[in-house]
């Protein structure tokens, strides 16, 4: 990591407190991946378009590739790793992705899950058009999106919710 002009960074990631010395220019995505080893957050474009790096910043979706790590000082971040704390049990949305074949290479999937987690929290019963609208913030080259939309439909119609 870069050494010059380090700043202290204190933040909460997936419920745990972290403290690190970082260079101001370090991108939040790089800090999460390299600094904390949370490699589930993927980097696809580094200009805020593809959405693969989407995380929750104080509960709201944000692109970690166009934020500085130092901006997270004093804030709470959730990454894909928070959706399944034991790393094995899938939450209903993850389970629906598996059932509906809502992922292929899986590279864009973490960003999509984080985007949809916030979306479904705010809109528990969206229409298909609303789902596609929310999903249009994330690029996927493999799925053509259809099975992702189906996965969301499974969750929103699930009696568990």
């Amino acid at each position, binding site marked *: *990591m*870069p*050494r010059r002009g380090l700043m202290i960074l204190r933040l909460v990631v997936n419920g745990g407190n972290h403290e690190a010395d970082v*260079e101001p*220019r370090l991108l939040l995505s790089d800090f999460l*991946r*390299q600094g904390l*080893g*949370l*490699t*589930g*957050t*993927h980097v*696809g*474009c*580094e*200009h805020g*378009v*593809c959405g*693969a790096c989407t995380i929750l910043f104080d509960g709201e979706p944000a692109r970690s590739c166009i934020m500085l790590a130092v901006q997270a000082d004093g804030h709470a971040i959730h*990454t*894909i*790793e928070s*959706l*399944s704390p034991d*790393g*094995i049990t*899938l939450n209903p949305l*993850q389970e629906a*992705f*598996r*059932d509906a*074949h809502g*992922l*292929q*290479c*899986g*590279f*864009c*999937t*973490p960003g999509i*899950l984080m985007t949809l987690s916030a979306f479904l929290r705010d809109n528990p019963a969206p229409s298909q058009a609303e*789902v*596609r*609208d929310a*999903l*249009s*913030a*994330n*690029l*996927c*080259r*493999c*799925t*053509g*999106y*259809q*099975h*992702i*939309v189906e996965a969301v439909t499974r969750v929103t119609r699930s009696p568990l919710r």
Partner: protein
Amino acid sequence: MSPEARYVNARVRRNEDARLLTGRARFVDDVQLPGLLHVAFVRSEHAHGRLIKVDGAAARRRPGVVAVYTFDDLGEYGRPAPVLVPPPPISGLVFHPRTHRPLASGKVRYVGEPIAMIVAESRYLAEDAVRDVIVDVDPLDAVVDLEAALTAGAARVHDDLESNAAAHVVQRKGDYAAARDRADVIVARRFTYDRGAAAALENRCVLAQWDRQAEELTIWDTTQAPIPIRNGLASRLGLSESQVRVVAPFVGGGFGPKIMMFYPEELLVPWASIRLARPIKWTEDRQENFFATTQERGQLHDAEMALTRDGRILGIRDTFLFDTGAYDPYGLTIPINTQCTLLGPYDVPNYSSEFTAVFTNKTIVTPVRGAGRQHGVFVSERLLDLAARELGIDRVEIRKRNLLGPDRFPHNHEIMFQDSAPLVYDSGDYLPALEQAAATIGYAELVRQQAQRRSGTRRVGVGIACYVEGTGIGPYEGARVTVELSGKVRVATGVGTQGQGHYTVFAQVVADVLGVSVEDVQVITGDTREFQWGTGTFASRGAAVAGSACHAAAMSVREKIVALAASVLGAEPDRLEVAGGRVSVRGAADRTISLAQLAARANPLRGAVRPGTEPGLESTAYFGPDRGSTASGVHAMIVEVDVETAMVEVKRYVVVHDCGRIINPLLVEGQIHGGVAHGLGNAFYEQLVYDEQGQLLNASFMDYLLPTATDVPPIETAHRETPSPFNPIGLKGVGEAGCIPTGAAFAQAVEDALNIEILDIPLSPDRLFRLIQQAADR
């Protein structure tokens, strides 16, 4: 077929998903090693120029920079990369192989060509040092336009060649000139299909670690073909193959360009890692990806079709130029695919096809999903539409009149396919697919409503296009199937996987043969330490070729299981049942043994075994088809065009396809959806725009437009199954099918809505606006 098909042909959810959904799956860029160094490249800003000076001295002095390499530092290692795919034996074929070097020497030939490599303590620092390298280039005129490239005074991409022609190939069947003389109507047009990017969401990444004590090199690489990369790098580095391990773990989408390219970065990172005795990683960024990762699609066709008055094809002639970019390491796979796929599902008695591959000062061209097939389909389907219009025959009807009937298989087209085998269709049944697609989209009703659809601001059009696709080509793949002491099964194969679901489909095949649960079959792909024979994932061949190898290996293991169980249980083999992870004697519930127990018995620790006994319940098998199998299908779509804004919305999309026997319909649908989205991208959104000096003007996701969830419609898919005779399960490939007829169907639908003529793909609102204006002016 498998003894009991419980999983094959079932909608089985994927074994690999849990890791991907929780963020645990390891992609190459996720690998972190102590002391890891990072790389940035100094790349050419000029499309064409003489390299006067490259000076890395200042960069070397920058704190945090460990090494700076230019061509002069490479010595013998700087020689050009190998030709990856030698051209097939076609008589009269001319091919000038010119491949890239790891770093530019003498000349730069495309924007983004690597000139110097910087190794530093972080990627941030390496990028800082890029500015420090002094590069002096004397710019030359760039070769951009395909026709201009072949004119006498054109600048030459490779000075040692007489022209920019990289290859010339003629293939003929019958006598087109005679057919033309007999024809009632000739339809002739010029068609273009412009460049696009594969744009996998994961950029490329290479990480190499040289273990000085063990003298072993481990390379993590986002490649579709780890074994050829291992073999090629070992030989180039002067190591034995067993000293090199290439791992392609989870790979974030391939779509063609992650094939065994021996990209400059792929050659240099391992080399530098040995030199510096440090682990080194290069992670491509999105901007680099637009220049440094290979692209596809640029072709210019002058084509004509000769027909009878009642719409029967007498022959087709096509002359086309193929843009191969600055180098041609991948040979002629793409244009030969174009040449062969153009014939489609039709009876074309006379065919004359000629192409010239052209060097240009643009990024190297290698196959991208579809790999030239969509161009052929675009040309023949467009010609049929134009002929239909000229002859006053319905578009579906003219296709029906020309389809090959089910009695025509195997059908020999009498020309050579890219796999060096004659172009022979193995099996197919085309007419029912066309009828089903037309019925599903409501074609007849839409035709009746044509006048109404073409009025008002929002105009509606319908398009319907057919295709065939050569898939599942050789040479071979292999697999090793092992029943482990736990009773669980492990399958290792050489192909890489980039999201296709190999972890699951191979497991399905093996689980059926061995009577185990699909979750109990662990598939390992893409690690040369696990399996070291095979070629890779390309040409829609993974399931058909490697899947067949898995099947063969599993069948062999099953024989061992049955033989051993027969002796242990004292029963005739034909009375044994292999199911539920056990072998049981039919009708005697107490005479049963688990696979775990059998595996233990097959590997005794004491005592004696009979001479010739192979230990374990394990087998390795290989499969190589005589030739590829031919998938086929029909796509139909309805579009709505706002004639005031030239914006197009796809309202419905129907796919009727035939990929032979299906292992997993859920995954096949996923492949089709993704292919269609990619095809719609190529039809309306995605175009790499180069200016006249070879500068790429849209090297970002802001300007290079991948379709999003609001651009891709729901896709209605119907499967038809005509098994292939060329492999035991009857499989054909499906990975590329979705994107092959999409452009042709889209052009036809928009044309139908607006009553204009569309000859160029990709279309865009801007291009469509011009066409609408021109039609209004006429």
